[in-house]
């Protein structure tokens, strides 16, 4: 292997490692966030659920906004990286272009979630 292509391979391996680390870190975030989310839902539906009650909790509350922004980012990235791995193994979809596309899909998914969170905050 030439020095240049060895360097390229090492760089690619590093980028793939970054995706893997992101996958693990988002998994840890999700493990906590999903629990918080579920507990919150169970608490919220007790005694009936109303739009006014939800908005009362979230409107103007930076803590909930931050929580849901982080949650949406983690979910979007985690899902997209997972699909990337499945696509690589099943249909052989690999490479830098595919990775960037998956990253874009993950971020786009997160943006939907973040928009919804901002809607509840504003």
């Amino acid at each position, binding site marked *: 292997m030439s020095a240049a292509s060895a360097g390229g391979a090492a760089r690619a*391996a*590093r980028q*793939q*490692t970054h995706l*893997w*680390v992101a996958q693990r870190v988002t998994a840890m975030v999700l493990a906590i966030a999903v629990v918080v989310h579920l507990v919150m839902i169970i608490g919220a539906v007790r005694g009936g659920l109303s739009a006014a009650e939800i908005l009362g909790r979230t409107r103007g509350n930076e803590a909930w906004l931050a929580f849901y922004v982080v949650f949406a980012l983690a979910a979007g990235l985690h899902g997209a990286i997972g699909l990337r791995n499945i696509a*690589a*193994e*099943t249909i052989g979809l*690999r490479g830098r272009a595919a990775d960037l596309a998956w990253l874009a899909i993950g971020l786009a998914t997160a943006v939907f979630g973040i928009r919804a969170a901002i809607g509840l905050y504003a």
Partner: protein
Amino acid sequence: MASAASLTVSVWRGGEQGHFARFDVPARENQTVLDVVTYIQRELDPSLAYRFACRVGMCGSCAMTVNGRARWTCRTHVRKVVGAGGALELRPLGNLPVIRDLVADLAPFFDKWSRARGTFQPKEAEEGAVPDDFAIVPPASKQRRQADAGIECIGCAVCYSSCDVVAWNGDYLGPAALNRAWTLVNDVRDGARRDRLDAVAGDAGCHSCHSTQSCTERCPKNLDPSLAIAGLKRTLFWDTLLGRR
């Protein structure tokens, strides 16, 4: 099923394309699968190609697929693996090209050892020269124990041929090469840690392992490549997160 008077042995003949040939081999009380193959080659068909050397589980050259499962044949007793009616099916190792009959081409397997930087790189002597002094590595130290756990690999490729990820991804380095890399990552005398971790990272490396543990389950030396791979992942996780890479 050791009581059948003879074994009905189906043996792969040919290369990638080929067929099974049937042989009847006398059953014995104590008989290894390698004994059966040797009997066929000596008594029934001298053109049969297969590989072995030590016959005592040291060299790693005799592995084949026996009734669907990769095994070292010199240490596998027929009575433990034989099917109903004395049936044995022998194929070359899977996940590797077939040269002829029971002989698989191990070149891709060993190429991956070198891609995983499976060679020791002495710290002080860059070009592989003998260092000036002995290194002292306490046997009870954690790194020494982790290196010791994987060092007895005989390179038989049983794990490699049992790994689904190797089948899905032709670039995947596989359990034996990664196990070897982990022993060297833990070798305090080695100076190529950084390059080696680069070599075993990413989609062709440890990050593709699904931790299914077929390698660990099937390794005839009872090594635990799956644990070694987890060690590589853990090391790369912290090194990456803490910006050490």
